């Protein structure tokens, strides 16, 4: 009988384990594995019953008691450590010691994520072995650390084809941001796209950027050097819809316009169009005006009403020549503090630009500020004849000496009463919905003395793109979309000479290990000999 007991315990244990494994592999064989588990349990209970006397004796031994004590204590410590782990994993604090704090999320991102009032579920689709997966996961984790409302999951579309199909995932790296009844798809995971995706998800209704047409403005669909297709794509990537507006036909700027862009018109606007623009500004509209030299004089008069002086001149920049450009491509590297130029360090290039300055005195209810200006080696040339002859020289008293401002911003307090503005009902309603009625009454203008800087040819030059997109974002009153540019580590290339390379090799791979080897051998040998 004793032999039977001795057999019952191990076989019972084996059955329990085997049953458990079998269940894990084939959950469908429930009844069968259940039987095995039951049999195992019965065998163990039987052996315990048979050996009850021995067990009580063993339990009463001092070493057993101590052992049980130790066991309990171990479990307790394990529990505490587990608890600390869980708490620390959920409440993380990070210190970024990198230069330029490149692993720290932008303030704007923090504001957006911390301010989440609804749950956002983010699903990123990455192949398991994809190089971009880790950085994306790290970034998402940083977001999730900011708010419990932000949850994310990284899914392999190859292993979860159902999920991938449900969201219509066509390429790796695509990420879905979801809120109840809303979703937003971004093609890649980086901070700018993620945060702007979040903003778009949180935003009510579409935001439309209108481009005025009918006066020889830059073409949105034009992919050539002077076209604006890339600018259009960049604006769309920043979550706006881009539409064209023929003001002559529409007669007023549509109510759904987040802003209107007048980009390099070559001919004058009709009087009715100017009136429509005026009305637009009065009801708190946002305008981006890019005026090339010697074009559309009546827009010059229009912006003058808002304290902006546009010069009848062309900016000549001697410094630009030394950079390999033309005299007529002034470089702007001095910026004045503003949301648009915040943290701006890159120069921008304005091919063929005129001066734009702040008028003195300013009309009432208007504030105007310079954005940026050219360097000291530049001036604003007023003599068109000189320009045509190609012989440019600065004439004291006639030309304006540098630095020459090329861009200004203006804010205009809406003077008009509600009743006077056409279509105010809808505007009013929209204003109430936003809960920021007074704020939306303030019109914003950005005026540049050039439209070429955002053309396909120049958009990607240095700071041009940022300046253009920041202007758009500021006009749309979405400063949050500004300043989230990917931070990159500074470039510190090393080019070794052959001697330096060989020196590094001999030093680190031969001499240093060799010294340890020799000193070790001599000391150990010396000890042996002295023994």
């Amino acid at each position, binding site marked *: 009988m004793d032999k039977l007991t001795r057999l019952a315990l191990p076989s019972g244990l084996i059955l329990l384990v085997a049953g458990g494994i079998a269940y894990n592999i084939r959950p469908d064989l429930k009844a069968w594995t259940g039987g095995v588990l039951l049999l195992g349990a019965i065998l163990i209970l039987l052996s315990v019953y048979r050996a009850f006397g021995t067990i009580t004796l063993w339990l009463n031994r001092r070493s057993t008691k101590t052992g049980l004590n130790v066991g309990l204590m171990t479990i307790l410590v394990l529990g505490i450590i587990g608890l600390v782990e869980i708490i620390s994993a959920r409440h993380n604090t990070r210190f970024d010691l990198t230069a330029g704090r490149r692993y720290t999320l932008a303030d704007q991102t923090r504001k957006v994520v911390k301010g989440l009032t609804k749950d956002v579920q983010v699903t990123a689709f990455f192949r398991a072995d994809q190089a971009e997966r880790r950085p994306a996961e790290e970034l998402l984790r940083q977001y999730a650390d900011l708010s419990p409302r932000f949850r994310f999951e990284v899914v392999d579309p190859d292993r979860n084809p159902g999920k991938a199909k449900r969201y219509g995932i066509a390429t790796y790296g695509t990420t879905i941001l979801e809120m109840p009844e809303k979703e937003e798809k971004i093609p890649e995971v980086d901070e700018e796209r993620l945060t702007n995706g979040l903003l778009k998800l949180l935003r009510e209704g579409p935001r439309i950027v209108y481009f005025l047409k009918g006066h020889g403005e830059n073409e949105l669909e034009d992919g050539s050097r002077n076209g604006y297709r890339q600018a259009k794509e960049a604006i769309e990537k920043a979550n706006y819809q881009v539409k064209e507006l023929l003001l002559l036909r529409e007669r007023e700027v549509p109510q759904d316009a987040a802003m209107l862009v007048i980009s390099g018109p070559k001919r004058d606007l009709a009087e009715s169009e100017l009136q429509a623009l005026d009305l637009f500004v009065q009801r708190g509209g946002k305008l981006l005006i890019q005026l090339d030299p010697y074009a559309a004089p009546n827009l010059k008069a229009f912006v003058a009403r808002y304290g902006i002086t546009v010069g009848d001149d062309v900016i000549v920049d001697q410094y630009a020549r030394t950079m390999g450009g033309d005299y007529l491509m002034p470089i702007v590297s001095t910026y004045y503090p503003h949301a648009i130029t915040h943290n701006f360090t890159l120069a921008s290039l304005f091919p063929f630009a005129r001066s734009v300055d702040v008028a003195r005195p300013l009309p009432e209810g208007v504030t105007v500020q310079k954005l940026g200006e050219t360097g000291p080696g530049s001036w604003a040339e007023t003599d068109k004849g000189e320009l045509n002859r190609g012989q440019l020289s600065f004439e004291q008293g006639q030309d304006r000496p540098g630095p020459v401002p090329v861009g200004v911003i203006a804010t205009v307090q809406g003077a008009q009463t509600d009743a006077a503005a056409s279509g105010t009902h809808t505007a009013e309603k929209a204003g109430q919905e936003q809960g920021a009625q007074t704020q939306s009454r303030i019109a914003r203008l950005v005026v540049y003395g050039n439209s070429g800087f955002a053309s396909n040819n120049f958009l990607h030059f240095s700071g041009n793109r940022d300046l253009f997109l920041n202007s758009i974002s500021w006009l749309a009153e979405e400063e949050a979309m500004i300043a989230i540019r990917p931070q990159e580590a500074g470039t*510190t290339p090393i080019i070794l000479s052959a001697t330096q390379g060989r020196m590094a090799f001999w030093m680190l791979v031969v001499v240093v290990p060799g010294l340890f080897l020799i000193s070790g051998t001599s000391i150990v040998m010396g000890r042996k000999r002295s023994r």
Partner: protein
Amino acid sequence: MNVLAIFKREWRAYFASPIAYVIFTIFALISGYFFYGLLTFFSLSSLQAAMNPTFGRSLNASEWIVRPLFRDIAITMLLLMPAATMRLFSEEKKSGTIELLFSYPIRDWELLLGKFLAALALYSVMLGISLLDIALLSFFATLEWGLIFSGYLGLLLLGMAFLGLGLLASSLTENQVVAAVGAFGVLLLLWVIGWTTEAAGPTLGPILSHLSIINHYDSFAKGTIESRDVIFYLNFTLLCLFLTLRSLESKRWRG
């Protein structure tokens, strides 16, 4: 005071035998070679970028050399540290000197701490050797010292975890080979445990990923210090040391 005495005894023991020298030599050789490889690759990339500026990559020495170097050092330590801890208790058990130690008026934790600190000192010297690479690199490029600091802090914490587990393994057996292989095996398993996260599903996956001993190092290597990673390593080390203490104690009550 007892801790210091134990520390001195173990420290001397490292240098009386060839262990310390072998470990230092091998480590200097491997880390030097890794560094040389990274440096020449980076130099080549810099040359290519200089010839073709439109390449447009940001060639940062800290990101391209220091960060991978830290990871290589971590792998080297994974291989070498079990050798540094294997004999700490096993040898004493085998030769019977542990009985002698137990008869001294030394508390178990003092014994443990002395041995742990001795191993940690050895480890720190190894990290010091790798500083030669950094020093050499600083002649060629401007380095991000914040990133280097956090990388070394991470290596120190990671090393503590390695040593803790090594001590535990050593306290469980009187065979040094078993102690070394056991510690190495468990550490390697903890190293790769995060690899199956994807297959493990949404509940078990994050737990496995959290248990992975190297996943917590990534943030240090890239120049950030995260509280949860610091706490993980400290917790891991403390748990190992606690279990080692219990294992030492068991000698007394098991008889």
